[in-house]
């Protein structure tokens, strides 16, 4: 399934209005913000339609699944938006991850738990915000808000250590551009970043990770950072996204893809946007001097012009690592 979907679901008391544009969206936050009410309304409308008194507007069918029926339902539906409430432990299972990977549905999961087996974006973790009542003073309006702003953070001081999520081309790049007095290390994967950060406690740290799939790690790292202001994050969608955004490759067309990725990416083919950007970059540079390999950085990206173009995308951290 491709695209961004605008969803409005309401009854006489509450209205929810929000957009879903990736295959996995997480909704969490304080109690009594309407998460269960939202899922209940969607379930009721899916079962009874307009006769339920619930109004739902969405270009795709919205439905719910639970621990008992998820497999049979997912076997029988296509291009739907599936809502899963928090009592369902299936969301933590490898079976669930394997199953949804091959489907063309979008999933909205209500949970406070981190789900490391699902590659969801930092940008797609939301809380629900009630922003007052309509003029008739009866119906409250509820919208989604991002829990973690991915605006690039600036660091007060230069980084002493840069921790890069992977050990591939992204690591090669940042290790090469980092100043000589900066220790650039690879965490060896997103699930090891927390441990690597804690092992370097007290140092000015800059963590560089792929935001497109870092969602499961964000909650705990965010709590840690609240007590450790010497740690900063840089979360581009991915290193490949950074190269694509640099303008080195076919400016306008690629810029449009980056701006509206949801319209170009088939969710059943790419479990995360990170994988889409990797494939896109590889295909766009194949046979050219910019030919990209995820395993090892093409040295051309360290030539002055190319390096500058890629670094410009990460301008906010340039002074802290070069």
């Amino acid at each position, binding site marked *: 399934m491709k695209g961004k979907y605008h969803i409005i679901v309401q009854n006489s*008391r*509450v209205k929810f209005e929000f957009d879903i544009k990736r295959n996995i969206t997480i909704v*969490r*936050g*304080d*109690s*009594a*913000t*309407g998460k*269960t*009410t939202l899922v209940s309304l969607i379930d009721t409308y899916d079962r009874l339609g307009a006769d339920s008194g619930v109004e739902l507007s969405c270009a795709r069918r919205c439905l719910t699944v639970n621990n008992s029926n998820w497999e049979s339902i997912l076997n029988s539906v296509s291009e739907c938006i599936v809502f899963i409430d*928090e*009592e369902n*432990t299936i969301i933590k299972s490898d079976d669930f991850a394997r199953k949804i990977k091959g489907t063309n549905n979008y999933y909205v999961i209500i949970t*406070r*738990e*981190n789900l490391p087996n699902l590659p969801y974006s930092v940008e797609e973790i939301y809380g629900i915000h*009630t922003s007052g009542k309509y003029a008739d003073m009866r119906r*409250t309006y509820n919208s989604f808000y991002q829990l973690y702003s991915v605006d690039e953070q600036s660091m007060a001081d230069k980084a002493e250590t840069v921790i890069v999520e992977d050990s591939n081309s992204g690591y090669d790049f940042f290790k090469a551009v980092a100043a000589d007095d900066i220790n650039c290390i690879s965490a060896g994967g997103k699930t090891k970043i*927390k441990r690597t950060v*804690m092992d370097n406690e007290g140092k000015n740290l800059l963590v560089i990770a792929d935001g497109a799939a870092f969602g499961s790690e964000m*909650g*705990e790292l965010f*709590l*840690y950072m*609240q*007590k450790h202001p010497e740690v900063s994050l840089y979360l581009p969608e991915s290193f490949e996204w950074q190269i694509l955004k640099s303008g080195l490759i076919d400016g306008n067309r690629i810029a449009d893809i980056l701006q509206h990725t949801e319209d170009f990416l088939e969710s059943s083919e790419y479990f995360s946007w990170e994988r889409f950007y990797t494939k896109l970059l590889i295909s766009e540079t194949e046979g050219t001097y910019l030919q990209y390999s995820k395993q090892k950085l093409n040295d051309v990206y360290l030539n002055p012009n190319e390096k500058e173009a890629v670094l410009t995308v990460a301008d906010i951290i340039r002074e802290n690592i070069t």
Partner: protein
Amino acid sequence: MLKIVFGDVENSIYHPPTYFDNTYEDEWITDPLSVKMIKDIDKSDVISARAIDSPVLGSISVKELSGGVKTLILMQFDESGKIFNASACGDNCAKWIYEISKHKDLTIALHHIMDFSACEDFSAFIVNSGKQVGSYKEYLDEALRIEER
């Protein structure tokens, strides 16, 4: 005294709101502590043991209370010995969990790191590591080290 177990543990209830719907007693709802918690978390007023006035949903039954406040009420009143999953509660319930633990021994399960930073003089016993923590920072440092979720 608050004891925290991270991850799965025997005798725990993963989704306390469902357990609450099938076990609650009327007198739990009208208890002064419950009235306060329902007002704080759900912004609702207890009219009687069977009627709640919600500013959002109107007149509701007890079963339409939020999952977080149902879990809090269980923590306070349930005497089955069950360990309730506090990941059914938002961070806005944290201060009430700690408040309840000041007056009774309370063991909770967690599948995420709950933010207790709003709790003054926070202390708890982390069952996974056997460590007594005497502040939110100590709790956070210990929780981040524990692998179980």
